[in-house]
């Protein structure tokens, strides 16, 4: 904990070496979170880059009450959300074209192997459900903590979590059955 406080202090002083150390320590965690939420390595790279730059430039806004890693994660989740918002506008505009391109296309072997994984199934969930599942199960956050991070009510988070859990179970059961029938 002391080393974290010291690291934040060095970041506040604008030390570049401290930023490198932050990426060394939290880089994988931020990148994995972004990948779990967006399902795309390029987007996860962009979000990680934006997250560390935001943290470096806005370190003055970190009040030191919670863990520094948690603050970084919140920045990453916010960046992921804005990427998703932009992507949904694009999808809305390009839906017709996509439908025409993907109609009748069978999933490739890579896609099948991704879908068989738990991360792949989480990526099948609608974005708001994916968000609560990742924060609750992967980052061990409670409903209250998720609500604070996302700026939503505890009731909303609780109901999203329960619906997400139900949908994930359906997806996992379906995948298990499909896998069983293929074997």
């Amino acid at each position, binding site marked *: 904990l002391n080393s974290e406080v010291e690291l934040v202090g060095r970041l506040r002083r604008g030390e570049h070496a401290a*930023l490198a150390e932050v990426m060394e320590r939290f880089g994988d965690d931020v990148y994995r979170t972004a990948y779990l939420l967006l399902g795309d390595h390029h987007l996860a790279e962009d979000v990680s880059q934006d997250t560390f730059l935001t943290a470096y430039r806005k370190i003055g806004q970190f009040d030191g009450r919670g863990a520094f890693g948690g603050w970084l994660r919140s920045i990453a989740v916010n960046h992921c959300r804005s990427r998703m918002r932009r992507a949904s506008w694009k999808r809305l505009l390009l839906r017709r074209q996509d439908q025409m391109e993907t109609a009748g296309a069978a999933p490739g072997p890579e896609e099948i192997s991704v879908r068989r994984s738990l991360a792949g199934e*989480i990526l099948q969930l609608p974005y708001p459900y994916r968000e609560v599942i990742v924060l609750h199960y992967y980052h*061990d956050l409670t409903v209250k903590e998720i609500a604070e991070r996302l700026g939503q009510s505890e009731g909303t988070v609780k109901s999203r979590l329960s619906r997400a859990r139900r949908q994930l179970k359906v997806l996992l059961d379906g995948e298990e059955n499909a896998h069983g029938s293929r074997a």
Partner: protein
Amino acid sequence: MRMDHERKRIKAALERELESVRLPRNVSDRVMRAAERKLPVWEKELTLPLPVLVCVLALFIGSFVVMADSPAEPVPAPSSYATKTIILDSGVFAEASLPPNH
């Protein structure tokens, strides 16, 4: 208890799957290069303090309220004096105000 067990199981499975997913080196290099770049002053000062933001919003909303309250057609001001049209010898029309008790 069951929920805790479920949470641990899912977390362990995700950690296993994401073990090989690591932040690429080139991302860290890009971040370091971008961090060394000096930000222009306007970009640094872009964050608006809350009171300023509230004032700007209040002005914006206020201007709409004022516009909504003002009538589209100007209402003539009521006059206590009656007016009378007089035709002058030259054939020109003229209006003259008459005192209220006329």
